[in-house]
Every structure is written in C-alpha cells, then in structure tokens.
C-alpha cells in the first residue's frame, strides 16, 4: 500500500510535468512576437502547418524550447549527481567549475575548428569530464572537505575563465560568438545544433535515473555504501562521467548557463525529500521548467529586445546561493 508521502511525491511529479507542458506552450506562444495560444495548440496538433505563426513556432521557438528543456534537465540532473557524489550541497556544474571546463573546451573548438556543430558537444564533454576528475581528485586529496571542493572549483573556474578571456582577446572573430556563449543563451538554437546533444542528454538522464539507488547509497557515506556491496569508486566515476556528459552537452549549445544545477536540486529536495529515485526525475523536470521559464522571461521583459537566459538565471540564482550559504553552510547531502 502506498503511503501518503509516496502519493504526494507522485502528485508533485505529475504537477511538475503539467507545469512543464504549460511553460513550454507559453514559450512557444510569447516572445518578440506574440502568438495566440490556440494557434500554438493548432500548430502542435498539425491543424495549422502553413501560416507564418506555424513557421515561427516550428523553425524558431520549438528548437529553442526543446533546447531549454534539455539544458535545464541536464544542468539540474548533473547538480543532483555531483552533490551526491561529492556529498556537498554546494556542488553544482557551475560552482565546481565543470561548466567552465566545458566552456573552455568549446571555445577552443570554436577557435580551432570554427563552428563545427558535431565537435562542440565532444569538446564540451571532454572539458567537463577533465574538470570533474580534477575536482574529484582534489577532493580526494583533501579528504573530501566540503570547503576545499568549492574553493578548488572557484580556483579551477577562474583559471579556465582566464583561458577563455585569453582566447577572446587573441581571436577577434571569437569575441563576437563567445559573448553570448559566456553569458548563456538559447537564442539561435536550431534542430541541427541541438539534435546530438539533446539525444545524449536524454540517454544520460535515463541512465542516471536507473542508477539512482546507487546514488542513494553514496549519500549514506562511503563506509556504509561499501558495506552494502556498492563498488563506491566505480559508481563515483560513473556518476561523474554522467554529470560531465550532461553539463558538457548542455554547455555545447546553451553556453555557460549558471545556477540551475545548484538551485533546482535544493528546491526539489525541500519538496520531495532526498530519495534520488524521485529526486532525479523531479530535478530534471524542474530544471527544464526553470530554464524555459527564464528564457521566456528574458524574451518578454524588454521585448522586442532579448535578455539571455543566463542573465535571468544569474539574477535569480545569485541571491539564492547567498541565502544557501548563510542558511546551511554547505551541509552534507544524504539520501
């Protein structure tokens, strides 16, 4: 028999899904040009395929909304994974420098191979993975001290930011492309640019959810997890690879979108608890809602001008991060 708490979790997940559908429809409808919601629905159901509204929805807003959903789900899921693996509630792709690692490598690929759409995700993943492993190694050397992980992340981030700025300075063509990328934007997303990363993100999210039980055990501490028969080192590496894959792929088309991986896992934990089996899907859906909603806000606030999604998220994320620091001081993540 299901308990009240389990039913509530189910309801929350269903509610989040409905909210995502709603926000996605609004994202398709509003922007520099407002399209009636009825027309959006007609276009989605195939009743309207030839009007100019349908063209805007299909070629501009649909890939952008899909990009927002994928990026949000990726960053939030990566956040839950990294917080679990490092046992640190302040860990996220942004705070520990994973996004910067991916960004650095993406800019490197942009500089060396121009705008090769297939190399970008590969470079982004490689950059995110290298950075994650460096941070994990530093955390291991420092006996997993939470402050050390975050401080090491800040140090690695600034090192990589310096590298990115150096590339920007040396390559004037890159400056034009990189500005939006460094802020984090979904503007200009096309099916071509998002197909490979979105498929990769989808697979990584599903895999993460399938391995959620192991993430729960890691949250109990290495000693307990080992005693329960979990190959701690192997699963830690698997989760780091998954988180790097998610963050890297999202950075490859969305740029350095910050704070989703930090805020969303915390909000979800307060809503549905620490069980990764529910937390991971909830964070994935919530992350998608956040990014799509922030992107929508960026488009309508000063329409016809657009604010990149990264700016909106940082405006919301920075105060929340400070609140988190003051309230919890980076408490351990348990499951």
């Amino acid at each position, binding site marked *: 028999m299901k*308990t009240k*708490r389990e039913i509530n979790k189910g309801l929350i997940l269903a509610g989040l899904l409905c909210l995502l559908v709603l926000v996605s429809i609004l994202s398709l409808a509003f922007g520099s040009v407002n399209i009636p919601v009825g027309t959006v629905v007609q276009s989605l159901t195939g009743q309207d395929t030839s009007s100019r509204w349908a063209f805007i929805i299909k070629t501009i807003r649909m890939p952008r909304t899909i990009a927002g959903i994928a990026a949000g789900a990726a960053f939030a899921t990566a956040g839950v994974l990294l917080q679990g693996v490092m046992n640190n509630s302040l860990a996220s792709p942004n705070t520990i420098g994973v996004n910067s690692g991916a960004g650095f490598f993406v800019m490197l690929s942009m500089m060396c191979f121009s705008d090769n759409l297939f190399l970008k995700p590969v470079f982004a993943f490689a950059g995110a993975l290298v950075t994650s492993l460096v941070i994990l190694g530093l955390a291991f050397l420092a006996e997993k001290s939470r402050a050390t992980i975050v401080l090491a992340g800040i140090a690695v981030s600034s090192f990589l930011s310096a590298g990115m700025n150096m590339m920007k300075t040396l390559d004037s063509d890159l400056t034009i492309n990189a500005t939006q990328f460094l802020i984090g934007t979904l503007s200009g997303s096309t099916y071509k640019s998002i197909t490979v990363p979105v498929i990769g993100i989808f697979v990584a999210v599903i895999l993460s959810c*399938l391995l959620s*039980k192991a993430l*729960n*055990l890691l*949250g*109990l*501490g*290495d*000693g*307990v997890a*080992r*005693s*329960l*028969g*979990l*190959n701690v080192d192997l699963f830690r590496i698997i989760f780091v690879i998954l988180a790097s894959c998610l963050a890297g792929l999202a950075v490859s088309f969305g740029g350095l979108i910050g704070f989703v991986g930090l805020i969303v896992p915390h909000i979800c*934990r307060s809503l549905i*608890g*620490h*069980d990764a089996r529910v937390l991971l899907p909830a964070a994935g859906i919530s992350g998608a809602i956040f990014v799509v909603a922030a992107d929508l806000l960026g488009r309508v606030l000063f329409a016809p001008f657009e604010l990149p999604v990264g700016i909106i998220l940082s405006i919301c994320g920075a105060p929340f991060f400070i609140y988190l620091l003051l309230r919890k001081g980076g*408490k*351990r993540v*348990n*499951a």
Partner: protein
Amino acid sequence: MLEFKNVNVSVGRTLILEGISLSVKTGSITAVVGPNGCGKTTLLQTLNGTSKVTAGEIFLDGDDFLSLPVRERARRLSFLPQFRETAPNISVRGLAEHGRFPYLGFSRTMMEEDRKAVDSAIEFVSLKEQKRKLVSELSGGQQQRAYMAMQLAQDCPVMVLDEPMNFLDFESQREMLALVKKLKDGGKTVILVLHDLNQALTVADELVVMKDRKIESVSTPEEAVKNGVIERVFNCTVTPVDVSGMVQYLLT
C-alpha cells in the same frame, strides 16, 4: 568462522596494523578493546574495504574473503561504520530497505522476500511505529537502531559494529547492548568495537585486547581479567564484584 591471518595494513610507509591473527568463533560476541589509536577501527575496516590489507589474508568460512566480489561479501558480512556526520533525510523503512541492496537486480525492484526481511528487521529493533518517520527526526538511540535495522535487513550471518555506543545516552546504550545479545541469541556472529570496558567485559564471549597496532590477547573476559592484560594495557585496576549473583567489574 572468520579468520585473520598475519594481516598488515599500511598507509604509505606507515604500518597501521601489524601481524594480526585472529579467529572469531561463529555464533559468538567478540568485543575489540584498546586505547585510542591502537588500530581497532582499522582492523574492522579491513572487512569493508575501507582499510586495504597490504599483507596477510582474511578467510570467512574457508573462503578468501577479500577475493570475493563486493556484493557477495555484503551478503555474508554486514558492517556498520562508526562515524555518521548527519542523519539521512529518509524514512526508517527507506533506510532499512537499503540493506537489501546486495540482493537486488539491476532494476533494484524489491520482491516479497525483501519486503519481509525489511519488516522483520524493523520489528527486531522495535521501530515498527516509527518506520514512516524520517531518520533525522529520531533520537540518537533510535537512529542507531534504524541503522541496525538496515544492517539486519542485509541478513548476513556475521555482523560487524564499529563503536555502536558512540554518542548514545545511558538508556540507549543499554538498549543497544540488549540488541547485541539478542542478535547472538538469533544465531549471528557479532564483532564490535567498544570503548566502555565494563560493557565489553559484560557482553563479550571473547575479548580482543589491542595495543600499539597489535593484538595483545584474545581470551574470555574472565581470563583477560585474571591474566592482568586489561590492567596492563589500560593502566587500571579491575576488581570483580558480585551484583545479585552476576559478576560485574569495578575499574579504578
């Protein structure tokens, strides 16, 4: 039977444990005692892989324990580490369910047998009424019992507990000792590290006394008192006292 044969543990060039040989009798309670830093926890941690054995072997019922796959080990020996920084924000039942991890397939779906094992473990530690509560909402003693429920759900013949009395008040310590005795009565082999010598002398069938990374003696508590090893290692005087027909020990 669990056997340690000439086990060494080193970290870098530092020897943490040296030439440990020990046989733990099946169905008994073995208490490991010794001054701080003598290697008690390290000795137990060789059993869950936290401390790496650099020389020697460990056998469980004749099998080379350290060569067994991790999950196989977790089905035969359960281990409760001493230090847990914060209590998890999951229900008592959720925690106990983790104990079934070594038995679950890739989908991690619990079968009827798993659910029964979890229910009986929760009942054993008398937390049936609290099973829906979050572990973080429980008292220290109840939290320790919740962890023990997880360990019991693991359903291993050998149970290792590293300082299970840490941070517990007197009443909770008494409850925990009663549970340890109940485990033995249920046929389990229990190995535990204890700081309180009185508790160790009272509850143990076999007492392992450690000093300076080595085992000083392995004997019954009575023998350990008689041969003076307790007094020597802990620099104290042990006086047996008859309390209502039961021998207790006065340590001064």
